């Protein structure tokens, strides 16, 4: 918002053009456009896409996927011996690079035979719905940089989050809800940078639902008066004042949008708490997500909330589970975290499937990096951005697939490596957007989510 009446923003200039074309067609078109913009209406993707929505289950801290999804017989055999390949030049901690075998074991699951750790029995049971990419990699070995790289494509500058890009491209499917919601995000390691619209218009920025488990809220959604009728009267008087003000000044799109924004906010205030409220869900659904009892209650509730938002038409919903950063105490910590995460994730995928929503909803699971096959101390693993696993389901992804591989010890992506840029290109492709054509002009050049990189990973598309 500009407090000095000066407005400059490329996407809004169309309004001025229409305004200047007089009161006839221009005024009508402007009115329709303002109504649409206020509603954030849905746009058809430029290409036929399979996915309409994304649910991103973000595992903050970096889960040890070499233990969870990528078992290595040589790592077990050579445990305690030095890592025979060259260790990365930059690591998070100093290390003797001694191999550490997994404290758990994986089994081939379902018809696909995808390997899933014994710690994750529920995810194991839906392995045939999942596509595991074992050759993920990124460029930054620190949490902040890697997290931003995963969310925005850049570990150096403030760039729009993928949820913002997708909303900018496709618009919102529900006029009363924000198009990008992030539940329980981390305030550190990039913080708001992870859901910021950066240089894209602010309406595409993520709406954070934070706070204590069970009391999570959109910022400023609660009216301190606790009286909707009184607030409605305030807004009616406000609208009347604003209309008179506008009539004196002549058509001004900025002022008109501001008037419309109060109406949208009022609608959001009515709709968001209801969509968010999982108490109306039947007991068997809560049970499916583990939202009924600990240790799955908190994350289960959040995953269930994510499904409700997604079902209501929110394009991009993110849920964050933390904190997988097991430099020490790997065994105990990963057992606890797996027990919290396994059932809600499998419950969400199964629930989407039984509702017929999985085909049009892309579910993405993963952390900002994985962990090293070498030891830190005697019960820990360091950050590993060089080779790790993420998995996906639905939205046009090929189910029951294992794609790419790491080396014999699980340190580096080896066969068919997939960088975060490639992941972004693929997500956009699934939503019907060509990542090379989809640009926004800023600071003198065109920007893309994938900037100057990224290849669509055709091998994981159904």
């Amino acid at each position, binding site marked *: *918002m*500009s*407090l*000095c*009446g*000066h*407005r*400059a*923003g490329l996407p809004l200039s169309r309004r001025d053009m229409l305004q200047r074309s007089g009161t006839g067609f221009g005024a009508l078109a402007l009115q329709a456009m303002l109504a649409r913009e206020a509603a954030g209406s849905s746009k058809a993707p430029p290409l036929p896409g399979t996915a309409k929505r994304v649910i991103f289950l973000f595992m903050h801290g970096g889960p040890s996927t070499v233990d969870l999804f990528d078992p290595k017989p040589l790592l077990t055999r050579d445990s305690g011996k030095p890592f025979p390949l060259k260790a990365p030049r930059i690591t998070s901690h100093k290390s003797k690079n001694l191999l550490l075998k997994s404290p758990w074991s994986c089994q081939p699951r379902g018809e696909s035979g995808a390997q899933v750790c014994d710690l994750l029995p529920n995810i194991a049971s839906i392995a045939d719905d999942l596509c595991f990419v074992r050759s993920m990699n990124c460029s930054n070995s620190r949490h*902040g940089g890697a997290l931003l790289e995963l969310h925005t494509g850049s570990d150096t*500058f*403030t760039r729009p989050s993928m949820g913002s890009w997708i909303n900018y491209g496709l618009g919102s499917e529900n006029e009363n809800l*924000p198009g990008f919601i992030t539940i329980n995000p981390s305030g550190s390691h990039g*913080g*708001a*940078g992870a859901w*910021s619209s*950066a*240089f894209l*218009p*602010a*309406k595409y*920025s993520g*709406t954070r639902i934070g706070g204590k488990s069970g009391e999570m809220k*959109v*910022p*400023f*959604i*609660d*009216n*301190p008066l606790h009286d909707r009728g*009184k*607030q409605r*009267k*305030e*807004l009616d*008087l*406000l609208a*009347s*004042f*604003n209309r*008179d*003000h*506008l009539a004196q000044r002549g058509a001004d799109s*900025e*002022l008109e*949008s*501001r*008037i419309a*924004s*109060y109406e*949208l*906010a*009022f609608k*959001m*205030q009515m709709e968001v708490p209801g969509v968010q409220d999982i108490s109306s869900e039947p007991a068997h659904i809560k049970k499916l997500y583990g939202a009924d009892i600990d240790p799955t209650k908190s994350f289960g509730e959040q995953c269930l909330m994510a499904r409700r938002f997604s079902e209501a038409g929110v394009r991009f919903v993110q849920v964050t589970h933390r904190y997988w950063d097991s430099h020490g105490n790997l065994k105990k910590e990963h057992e606890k975290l797996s027990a919290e995460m396994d059932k809600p994730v499998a419950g969400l995928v199964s629930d989407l499937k039984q509702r017929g929503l999985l085909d049009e909803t892309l579910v993405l699971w993963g952390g900002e990096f994985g962990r090293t096959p070498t030891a830190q101390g005697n019960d820990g693993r360091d950050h590993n951005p060089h080779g790790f696993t993420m998995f996906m389901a639905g939205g046009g992804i090929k189910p029951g697939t294992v794609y790419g591989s790491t080396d014999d010890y699980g340190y580096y992506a080896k066969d068919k490596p997939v960088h975060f840029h490639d992941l972004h290109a693929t997500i956009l492709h699934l939503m019907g957007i060509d990542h090379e054509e989809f640009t926004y002009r800023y*600071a003198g050049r065109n920007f893309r989510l994938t900037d100057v990189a990224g290849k669509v990973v055709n091998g994981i598309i159904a």
Partner: protein
Amino acid sequence: MLVVKTSKYADRSQLKAHSLAPRRTVYLPVYRSAGYDGQKAFDAADPAVPDGNRRTSTVAGQALYLMNSELMHESSRALAKILTSSIPSQNSRDRTSWLIEHLLGRESTEKERLQGEKFVNNYSDQKEAWAAFARVLFSSNEFLYVE
């Protein structure tokens, strides 16, 4: 040479405390890697690049801030307090005039005085009524946008 302890005036871990300081935002430390929620909601410039042409937006999240934030409610209550002591008579037309003159810097219209009268008559509590009316003026385009 002036010697100042590192982070004496600007501490990355004290963003919240900085934002609550009773100073104008021009005195807030700016961090390239972080920002303030209120500023972000209202299109603060990206501190990582030169920004000669500020982008502006008008979104529902900003409206929620104006409708429900503590700042708006506290300020409107405070203004209502000043109003009731400045115009002790309970004449709602006089009070409407006073508020509009003080916030918008112009005389009120007859229509506004009538609307003000009608609006506050809905309330049993006068303090609450004038705080609500002040909030409406604080949120109005005429107050928020300067020519």
